[in-house]
């Protein structure tokens, strides 16, 4: 079916849980812009999606502890599903062709499940990379240290 894991959302969720709001939001904006640049869709669509996902993930980080594989996968799954729904609604709202809802939703479900399975490993990979470049750059919150 051509389903691929959404690494950008994983990164956005990661920064939302590990960084203060502003740098995370800027990164989400830049990543969304980058995705829009490379995608065939209209500019701004992914910017909006990523910024919103980041904001909601940041709000979730206040109450959710990402201390288990299941939770990490679950948060990423919800983020991808949420972003998918947001993009679908946005496309409908601005009058862009978005196709029928069911196939779109099924695709988002599969993509979310696939990425969720990999989420824990990806989080570890990002942490490892950041630590390799110097842990001072990472603002770890008390939640994620457990």
């Amino acid at each position: 079916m051509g389903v691929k894991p959404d690494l950008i959302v994983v990164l956005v969720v990661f920064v939302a849980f590990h960084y203060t709001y502003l740098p995370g939001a800027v990164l989400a904006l830049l990543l969304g812009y980058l995705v829009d640049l490379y995608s065939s869709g209209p500019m701004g669509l992914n910017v909006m999606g990523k910024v919103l996902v980041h904001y909601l993930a940041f709000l979730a980080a206040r109450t959710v502890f990402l201390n288990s594989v299941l939770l990490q996968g679950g948060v990423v799954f919800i983020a991808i599903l949420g972003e998918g729904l947001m993009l679908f609604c946005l496309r409908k709202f601005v009058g862009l062709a978005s196709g029928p809802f069911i196939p779109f939703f099924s695709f988002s479900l599969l993509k979310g499940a696939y990425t969720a399975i990999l989420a824990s490993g990806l989080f570890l990979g990002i942490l490892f990379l950041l630590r390799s470049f110097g842990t001072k750059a990472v603002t770890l919150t008390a939640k994620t240290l457990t």
Partner: protein
Amino acid sequence: MSLVRRRQRVLVLGLFLVFSFLLLSLELKGERLPLAPVDKMIVSVTSPVQEGIKTSQRAVVNLWRWYLDLLFVRQENIRLKEEIAKLRWEMLKLKEEVQAQERLGKLLELKEQLPLPTVSARVIARDPTGWFKALWTDRGADDGIRKNQAVISYHGLVGRVVEVFPRFSKIMLMVDPNSAVDSLVMRSRDSGIVYGRSRSGLVMQHLPLTATVTAGDLVLTSGLERVYPKGILVGQVTQVRKGTAGIFLEAEVSPGVDFDKLEEVLIVRAEQGGPELSN
């Protein structure tokens, strides 16, 4: 402080959303923000990174596919090996059946050619001691087998029945040291007695000094001692020499039958000294 931060966050979010909405609406109108040089710069900076990611992703996918292929090849290999073993077994069985058919066909041919009542028997055991040359067949008194009946195969004389049980019989082979067969040389009609010599085959003794026996002559049963029908192949002369006393000739005879490969035989049920065979 917290309220200020919250307001700041909402402000940033609002700004970013406005920015993205502006991008979107301009895009939909067919216009773009004057960001083309920035876009170009971003693309030129990020393209190699993206290409690197793609390459490594492709490498991982290829590695995974290679691993899966290898896994399937291994399973396929096991399956094919099992199939080969099964087919080999079936082929062996078929070959064995074909050979058995050939042997039985020859035996049947011989049985039809012989003007004697015969019964076919399967070899079921061989004498394990090695001292005496004997074998066991699956025919006995119940099948009309009696002591001293001749046993033959497609290749010639085998021996005679020495012990009879209701459903089995013991055959003393011609090569047993206790065996003696009155025989004659087919070409010269010289007669003598063929004795068994265990591993070293047969020896034909009591040949007159005037006999014209030569290597390659065929030796047949004479039928004189009324045990073996006349005219059955005993073997072939391989060497002729003077006997130890010097008054007879003796000949080394190679048996016509390969006793180690005997699987089926015919037991002649005729009364002793039955009709003779044409030679």
